[in-house]
């Protein structure tokens, strides 16, 4: 017997993700799923953002980590509410993990919730966690051909942060090439070259966040 099925394999995760999205929408929380390779400087960038904008917004972080809680401690040191999910070797966060973490947080007055995904450019791209947007952080030391190697994550991201621009003079990396690769699969991607270390470019990223928080409140 031939049975025509046509069902998305990750439909169960999509359902949880929709449930999360409805909950975040009701509370008008902007939710950003941050993804990168290990070592792209995601946690440092997040720390800077949490510190620089803490007088403006109430921010919270769900921290995905393979084993340790070091990143969550760094994030909590900024004063932001942070909760850690240990994936115990798992290569991505999924909707049910975020649902459980969100249940342990006080989300009443939160403006922005950052979900810091596990460092990996492949697996997290397939699993929605109720976010408004996926944000990919690529550092210039990783090579400008990364978008070509991991197309899905760049196709799905609203923003690409090109981090560690202070190292541009020392590495073979073309901002234009990386941007064009990303744009070839994603017409609407916004690209911000930044250096979390020197603060270069961070204002454009912050302005984008401010604008999205307003949009969310008005939605």
């Amino acid at each position, binding site marked *: 017997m031939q049975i025509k*099925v*046509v069902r998305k*394999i990750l439909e*169960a995760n999509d359902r949880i993700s929709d449930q999360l999205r409805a909950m975040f929408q009701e509370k008008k929380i902007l939710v950003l799923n941050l993804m990168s390779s290990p070592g792209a400087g995601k946690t440092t960038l997040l720390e800077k953002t949490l510190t620089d904008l803490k007088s403006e917004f109430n921010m919270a972080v769900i921290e995905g980590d393979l084993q340790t809680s070091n990143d969550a401690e760094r994030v909590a040191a900024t004063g932001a509410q942070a909760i850690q999910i240990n994936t115990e070797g798992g290569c991505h966060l999924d909707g049910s993990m975020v649902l459980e973490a969100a249940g342990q947080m006080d989300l009443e007055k939160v403006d922005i919730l950052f979900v810091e995904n596990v460092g990996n450019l492949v697996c997290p791209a*397939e699993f929605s966690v109720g976010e408004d947007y996926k944000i990919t952080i690529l550092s210039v030391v990783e090579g400008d051909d990364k*978008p070509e190697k991991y197309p899905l994550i760049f196709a799905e991201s609203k923003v690409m942060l090109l981090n560690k621009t202070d190292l541009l003079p020392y590495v073979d990396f073309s901002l234009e090439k990386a941007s*064009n690769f990303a*744009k070839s*699969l994603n*017409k609407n991607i916004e690209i911000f070259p930044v250096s979390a270390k020197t603060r270069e470019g961070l204002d454009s990223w912050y302005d984008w966040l401010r604008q999205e928080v307003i949009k969310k409140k008005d939605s």
Partner: protein
Amino acid sequence: MHEMSIAHSLVGIIEQEMAKHNVTRLIRIKVKFGRISAIVPEALQTAFEAMTAGTSLEGSALEIEEVPLVAKCRECQKEFSPEDDLMIMTCPHCSAEFGHDIVSGKELYIDEIEAE
């Protein structure tokens, strides 16, 4: 290796569909995945075999079929399917470079099963 999570979800759906149609022996499953989805077919095959070993689904054939990437040109709105170079996709109709929309190529779904 998110293929393990994917195989787990796949098995769940197969079991539901088999119960719904009142069949007990799985013969074949067909999965379709988009060219730019983050799926490694060999890894999914291995994960599926590991997941079904020793269960009633053991020994069924998993067919994994790729769905090509189809893009719609931002300039002339015509669709095209880039053959080799996925990046800097140049529209074959009007030569516009990058900034196109993806029409298909991100799918991941179970298409059909054969069982008795």
